[in-house]
């Protein structure tokens, strides 16, 4: 078991204390989420905004201290003590290429910072050479190393961010909506680059996105989140073709189809109401307030994520 999976997340919980008046209410951003990622695999994580996707990614990398649950990397449990060494193995690419690069640093310094922190070079020349190599890997012109981040376009900035993550040669990268801030033509380039890098280096990705088409393109498996809970997880083709959970169904029906004829014949499942506040979570299944199949059992008890065969996990009582 220890070697089959690169990253094992079990019962991860992340509550943020929200103070209102004299009381402190926990905001359950991530509540009891478990999943595994194999080496070299891409797990897509989808869900609407505010459902805790980003928090999962950040808690995974210990940018937040988890409230409960464990993250195991390559057989060793991630703790505050060993996280510094593990940062060399796990990296992150951020969502907003405009705020994720320090405006006062040159590209060379941004990409070189992980090398500085982990002391991965012995001479200045070696550092420079490594940075040049990384810039070439992500398709940046090496002449631009002395420039500042604001002189680049969104796509180029995201490449700088990727080069920074690659600098330590990680085995696992959390991609936190890396393409949602880019325009569509650039999205394709960046997504393809992610794929190429994976082929070359055999890295595993946790690919967070809300664009299902992008996720389907890049992922081996897809996990669907709703209000901090995992709803469904399956191989991407299986999930796309045979969604079981009613939330996944409605999510998939919302994907735009680039052909007017098929689009007209397909049926959109429109959900009633809004996402409940994570401060005031419904009892039992978090989705029951908007689910057309909801029963008394849904209100009483939260469904566990259960294997329905072939690694297709679903958390639902009725389907």
């Amino acid at each position, binding site marked *: 078991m220890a070697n089959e999976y690169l990253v094992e997340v079990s019962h991860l919980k992340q509550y943020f204390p929200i103070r209102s008046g004299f009381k402190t209410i926990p905001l359950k951003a991530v509540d009891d989420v478990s999943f595994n990622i194999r080496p070299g695999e891409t797990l897509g994580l989808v869900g609407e905004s505010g459902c805790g996707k980003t928090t999962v990614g*950040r808690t995974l*990398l210990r*940018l937040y201290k988890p409230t409960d649950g464990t993250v195991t990397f390559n057989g060793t449990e991630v703790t505050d003590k060993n*996280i*510094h060494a593990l*940062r*060399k193995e796990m*990296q*992150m690419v*951020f*969502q*907003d290429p405009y*705020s*994720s*690069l*320090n*405006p*006062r*640093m040159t590209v060379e310094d941004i990409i070189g*910072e*992980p090398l500085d*922190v*982990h002391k991965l070079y012995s001479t200045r020349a070696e550092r420079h050479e490594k940075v040049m190599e990384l810039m070439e890997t992500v398709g940046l012109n090496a002449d631009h190393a*002395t*420039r*500042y981040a604001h*002189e680049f376009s969104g796509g180029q900035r995201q490449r700088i*961010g990727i080069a*920074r993550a690659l600098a*330590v040669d990680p085995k696992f990268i959390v991609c936190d909506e890396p393409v949602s801030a880019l325009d569509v033509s650039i999205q394709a380039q960046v997504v393809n680059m992610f794929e190429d890098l994976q082929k070359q280096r055999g890295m595993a990705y946790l690919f967070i996105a809300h664009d299902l088409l992008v996720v389907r393109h890049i992922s081996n498996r897809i996990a669907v989140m709703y209000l901090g809970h995992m709803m469904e997880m399956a191989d991407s083709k299986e999930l796309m073709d045979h969604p079981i959970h009613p939330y996944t169904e409605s999510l998939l029906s919302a994907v735009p189809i680039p052909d007017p004829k098929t689009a007209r014949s397909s049926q959109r499942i429109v959900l009633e109401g809004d996402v409940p506040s994570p401060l005031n979570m419904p009892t039992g299944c978090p989705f029951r307030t908007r689910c057309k199949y909801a029963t008394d059992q849904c209100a009483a008890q939260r469904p566990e994520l259960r294997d329905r065969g072939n690694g297709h996990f679903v958390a639902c009582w009725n389907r």
Partner: protein
Amino acid sequence: MAKDLKRAPFSAQVDLSKFHMEDFDQATEEEKRQQEVMGESTTFFKDGMRRLRRNPLAMGSIVVLILIIAVCLLAPKIVPYGYADIMKGSNNLGPFEYSAAELAKIDAGEEVFPHIFGTDSLGRDYFIRVVYGARVSLGVGIFASLLVLIIGLLYGSISGYMGGRVDMYMMRVVDIIYSLPDMLLIILLAVVLNETLAPKIQGTVLAKLGVNMISLFIVFGLLYWVSMARLIRGQILTIKQNEYVLAAKCIGTSTPRIIRRHILPNCLSVIIITTALQIPSAIFTESYLAFVGLGVSAPMPSLGSLANEARGGLQTYPLRLFFPALTICLIVLALNLLGDGLRDAFDPKLSR
């Protein structure tokens, strides 16, 4: 072309069949070069300095300040009088006047340096006194501002970066200090220190500075850093939200390095501007205190104490008030204009 594809009616795709190769010319080298539109890579600092150079008021203030500082540094070397040298018989001279003794010397063929601003009632050269006064005022202004900067920077950045409960307690301390009356404290401290500290520092460098000056510095160190600390804390709170700080954490960067490399450089402009504007306020405080008699100790002049001494003979010798007052005005005005210029240059968002 492999296949004749059918175009959708509103497609924005360019129809290549309408173009022929022979309609196009190869671009010349000249035209290719025109495509290279990338500008010089500018750093934030270079950009700011360029904007600052275009601001005539700020550049004028820099020139005035450099002149004043040059005079302060060079005048004591050129002028043969000391600030405490009492010359018998040459009291109360106007500008460029000579006493009887000096006239006799000139008649005998000796060179006598003119009293540019005249002399005071004790016969001391007034120009050199104003120069020393400006030295004291500028020195106090700059050192007090540096003191405020260092304490405020450390306190503010720790408070802002740590956040949460630490921040809350640290800021309550600031609130308490904010509510203390500063002038009263300076006066009280000066009185107390005069009794306790004065005998101890007898004969050291500190004695020359005077107990009043020391208490002024102590009060600056104790009280005046709070607004700087608040400002820097606020800046850091906003900068901390940026994803590049999170990215640095994700890389494994240590906290001191994050503050040093990622956070402070991004609030540098605010720090420079506030320090530049802090200097004139420190000079004002010093002058005010010197005017009420709490400045540097006796023979050493400061612009405020010169103005105070001039008060007595205001009717007969108005120029004696005019010179130190003009110097204070020039220094403070130039520093304020420079501070404004720096703000416009380094914080362009604020000026609009």
